[in-house]
């Protein structure tokens, strides 16, 4: 890299002899980089080969449109909609928590907090992102659900609402951190210009900073939602194990991830149709999150180009 920058000034600079050791090192490094490519290929193969076998036994149309999921029954029904619906319900309520409050925390950290308070508050908030999901699941089951019952929600021991609320809190630092990064990239001059015209802090935040950082903020939402779709332990512990096509968050639901986790625990015979369903559902999940990640990467890139 550095030598290339120098080369216009010294156009005839060439190595006296080829250094094979250097080439070998470059080869070894490239090989290590290849591990991550192999991982992607491995994931695609591992998911889609059993999934294709699965779709030889079950029609893909029935899978995508069926409203009954009883994969482990003796006469199984493989309609994935209850699992997708359960995922959607949990993700929706998690997003209703993490998007507004994550953005609120980001605006506070970026526009309102003193630098000393920020240096303390931001790492504290980020501890939330480091807590294992199994602990969140326990918290949802033993603290949030009883709390919901105490304030008068008609919920059972297992319900989508408490899993979703806890997941929303877990994702709050993801949204806050990434949105705050996007907001700190907005040039000071824009803020100073707005203040000079008599704007209040509220106006500067909502009409200048947030619009300027909007693609970074949306990217943080998309990333959080994609994490919510792939989150397993909270829903496995707190949302119950009943596939259920409903829009009522007080009921119990099973998400795609929870189905995979629950089925893998049982004695599922390797190679059976039930075993293959795990991979079919996994492939569905993978495609869903991949699409969201591509959107998020594109948005982040767009926001980077704005002020550089």
């Amino acid at each position, binding site marked *: 890299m*550095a*030598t290339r*920058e120098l080369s216009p000034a010294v156009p005839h600079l060439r190595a006296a002899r080829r250094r094979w050791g*250097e080439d070998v090192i*470059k080869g070894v*490094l490239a090989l*290590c*980089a290849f*591990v*991550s490519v192999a991982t992607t290929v*491995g*994931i695609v193969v*591992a*998911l889609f080969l*059993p999934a294709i076998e699965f779709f030889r036994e079950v029609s893909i149309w029935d899978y995508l449109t069926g409203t009954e999921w009883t994969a482990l029954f003796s006469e199984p029904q493989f309609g994935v909609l209850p699992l997708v619906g359960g995922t959607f319900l949990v993700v929706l309520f998690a997003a209703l928590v993490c998007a507004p409050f*994550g*953005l*609120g*925390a980001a605006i*506070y950290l970026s526009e*309102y907090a003193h630098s000393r308070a920020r240096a303390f*508050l931001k790492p*504290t908030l980020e*501890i*939330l992102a*480091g*807590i*294992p999901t*199994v*602990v*969140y*699941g326990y*918290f949802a089951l*033993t*603290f949030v659900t009883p709390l919901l019952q105490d304030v008068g929600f008609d919920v059972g021991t297992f319900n989508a609402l408490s899993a979703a609320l806890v997941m929303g*809190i877990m994702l709050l630092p993801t949204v*806050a951190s990434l949105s705050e990064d996007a907001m700190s990239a907005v040039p000071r001059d824009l803020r100073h210009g707005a203040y000079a015209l008599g704007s*209040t*802090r*509220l*106006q500067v*935040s909502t009409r200048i900073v947030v619009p300027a950082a909007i693609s970074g903020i949306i990217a943080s939402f998309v990333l959080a939602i*994609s*994490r919510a779709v*792939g989150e*397993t*332990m909270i829903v*496995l*512990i707190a949302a119950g194990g009943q596939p259920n096509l409903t829009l009522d968050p007080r009921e119990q639901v099973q998400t795609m991830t929870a189905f*995979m*986790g629950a089925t*893998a*625990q049982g004695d599922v015979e*390797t190679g059976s149709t039930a075993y293959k369903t*795990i*991979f079919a559902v*996994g492939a569905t999940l993978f495609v869903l999150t*991949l699409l969201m*990640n591509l959107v998020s*990467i594109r948005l982040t890139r767009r926001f980077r180009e704005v002020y550089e």
Partner: protein
Amino acid sequence: MSAVPGALRGERRRGRVSGVLFHGFLLFSLALGIGTLVALLAQVVIKGWSNVDAVLLFEPPSADPAIAGARPAILATIYLGLLVIALTVPIGVATAIYLEEYADKDRWYNRLLEVNIQNLAAVPSIVYGLLGAAFLVRGLGLGRVLLAGAFILTLLVLPTVIIAAREGIRAVPGSIREAAYALGATRWQVVWRQVLPAATPGIATGSILALSRALGETAPLLLVGALTYVSFNPTLLGDFTALPVQIFQYIQRPQEAFKTVAAAGMVVLLVILLLLNSVAIWLRNRYQTKW
């Protein structure tokens, strides 16, 4: 004339009320996060503290909550941590060096590599578990063993380590490299003797944070079969269960007393992760150079 200041004043009063409301909303957002953190830690510690004792640390799991411990799981988590660090750091740092110091960024395959790593970082962890179930447990015939779990966790956190190492390497100023080249150093000499030593604190911090993420993972291990009832000390090629999986197992048991054992396990897990995080933060503050 008098209408204008009046309007201005009205505007300001309305602005002040909404400003206060907005400020309140922002404070509430932050308090919601931090308040939940406090409630969560309090709930776990209050429920579990009395059970953090010699039984938990030194006894195997049992059907009787009074003598149920987590020794095999704690040991397995320590083994997993050592294996994950030994595998991820060399591969991750080598990939980062390749991307930052060697790769020609205009080539399509290097750009593909970059997008690929970004994507892998966001693949749900349970999908890595499927990769392990298909290739390691079934394909290679390794079985549901500790080594398979370590490989899966390695692949899971590799993108995180690569991204952190790249940031550490990028923070080393180009003038250092140019000075070394000017003295006749080869590319590898520049990397090994100048860039890497300067980037080490950043790489170490990122690797430790990645490790703490790996040790808290449950879902991918469930899929490589870590839920078997394990009462003996783990070996590389034997059945295993990690601490988060053991906690999950205890949560699932019907008796209320096991919830307490689970909470005690969480206290141990959180202490391990907190220690790792503190080391990472200390490293960053102690050794990070500002160029």
